């Protein structure tokens, strides 16, 4: 694994200043893809006129930059808005507000710029079973985009198809080119789906839970392929997952979402080693960890709120063990908590006396939201019933 640094372009600005915090790995130059203040509200179709204007607040004011040669992981529980964010980034759905920039230029809405955008930004779906057509061979799936994109001649087509297969480590390629989807394993199909995306030479790969439907034993192979596409082909990769351990494994930067908002972002290892947001801490404590000797203590039990009427202020406040009066009233902006790491939590307001406080009492030691905390180790369990 090559990546080391990354994180959010942190600011200490208070909430009301205009410029939003842009999440994602920090690299010099213009990012391939940038999203500014993306928001998506889905209309709720319900009976009765009263509810006609209700909307699902699926993605709220997210700014993200994806530089070439990096992997950004978006982590969150089911329903937190990850897929909506990925679909917004592919232009499959239109944002309620916000804008997209490709190579630093605002993406237009005319057919030509949309086509160019679609070519450069490719979405890899979760389900490698439905994304390929069972009546067509691997060759057919790959030659089609090659023909459309490069207008390659007959002779080159086979060579280019073989090359694509090698690029996704389906090797020897000649063994795979004439196979049909049902003759391939899930991991191999996901590789074909990725190869098909690569045929049009995209600059950005958006992968929405690309391994969650694959057998455990072959997941790492696909993650390692994404890693290679980042380092070898300098693609900008967005990796959407609910598995924070795999995000830590693959990503430069981890972006944590809760109820449609980004609650924390920063360099991958830093987010898991020193999470600053109470929700990130909860997510980590709930994640499986074979090295754990005591059952974890979950601080902030419950489930995510309705996104039709999300809680005011911090959307996590009804569950948060640290909630203060301000949390119900105003939405916390992203505060800088460490190098390249930001957390949208009032506990981290600069100059806030609580920020570096050691916490209410020793019994909560493990989970006090301090940025510099070296280990988010679980608090001592009151009773251990393994």
């Amino acid at each position: 694994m090559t990546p080391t640094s990354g994180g959010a372009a942190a600011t200490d600005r208070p909430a009301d200043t205009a410029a939003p915090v842009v999440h994602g790995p920090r690299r010099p130059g213009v990012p391939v893809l940038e999203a500014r203040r993306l928001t998506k509200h889905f209309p709720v179709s319900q009976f009765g006129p009263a509810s006609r204007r209700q909307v699902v607040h699926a993605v709220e004011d997210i700014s993200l930059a994806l530089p070439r040669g990096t992997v950004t992981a978006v982590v969150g529980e089911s329903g937190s808005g990850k897929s909506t964010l990925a679909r917004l980034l592919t232009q499959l759905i239109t944002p309620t507000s916000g804008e997209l920039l490709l190579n630093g230029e605002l993406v237009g809405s005319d057919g030509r710029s949309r086509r160019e955008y679609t070519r450069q930004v490719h979405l890899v779906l979760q389900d490698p079973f439905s994304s390929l057509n069972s009546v067509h061979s691997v060759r057919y799936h790959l030659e089609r985009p090659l023909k459309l994109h490069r207008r390659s001649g007959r002779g080159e087509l086979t060579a280019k198809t073989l090359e694509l297969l090698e690029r996704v480590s389906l090797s020897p390629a000649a063994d795979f080119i004439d196979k049909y989807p049902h003759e391939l394993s899930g991991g191999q199909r996901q590789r074909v789906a990725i190869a098909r995306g690569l045929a049009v030479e995209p600059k950005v790969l958006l992968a929405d839970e690309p391994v969650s439907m694959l057998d455990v034993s072959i997941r790492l192979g696909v993650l390692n392929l994404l890693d290679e596409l980042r380092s070898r082909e300098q693609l900008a990769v967005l990796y959407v997952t609910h598995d924070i351990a795999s995000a830590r494994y693959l990503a430069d930067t981890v972006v944590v979402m809760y109820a449609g908002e980004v609650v924390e972002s920063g360099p991958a290892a830093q987010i898991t080693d020193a999470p600053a947001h109470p929700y990130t801490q909860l997510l980590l404590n709930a994640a499986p960890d074979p090295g754990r000797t005591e059952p974890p203590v979950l601080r902030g039990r419950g489930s995510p709120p309705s996104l039709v009427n999300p809680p005011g202020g911090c959307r996590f406040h009804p569950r948060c063990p640290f909630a203060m009066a301000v949390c119900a009233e105003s939405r916390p902006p992203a505060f800088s908590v460490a190098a390249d790491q930001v957390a949208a939590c009032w506990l981290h307001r600069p100059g806030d006396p609580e920020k570096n406080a050691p916490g209410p009492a020793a019994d909560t030691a493990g989970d006090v939201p301090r940025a510099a905390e070296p280990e988010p180790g679980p608090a001592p369990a009151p009773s251990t019933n393994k």
Partner: protein
Amino acid sequence: MVTQREILEELMQLRERLGFAIIFITHDLSLLIELADSIAVMYAGRLVERAGATELFRSPRHPYSLGLLNSFPALHGERVRMEGIPGSPPSLTALPQGCAFHPRCAFALDRCRTDTPRLARPQREPAGRERLAACWLQDGRQSPPGPLAVRLNDDAGPGTGPASASASAPAPASASASASGDTTPGSAR
């Protein structure tokens, strides 16, 4: 994840209270190691290893168990490249001859291609460990490779029984679990 953890906690509390045994059937080995007392690993329709959760985690005896353990990135420590298991699970209708794992096994011997290993006690297993593995490497004719021959610190210690992993649990109930790979390419969970 949070919801999953809450449901599991509830189950474990019920177990304490009512004293029943739980069998988890899952492919999430990292979660099992935390929750279960004993784990049975299945591959291609057969039991390939059975051990206490801690024993399995620290000292797997079957190459498939080892491969599964290497398929879950850690939440802590240095980030290192991991490889998972090469190849993919076989179709149940076209199982490889001999040990069904041999096409994916880095340690396969000649006889693995023709003879199916039986589930048995590893020959060099320290006394007191209750453990079974279906692998020719463990039949005593050769020393198993390092990663499959790890000894636990407490192996030599007197009185360390097979229940050491669960000795702290007061209830007679136990949770056992089974981890298994996909058996057909394309079958999804």
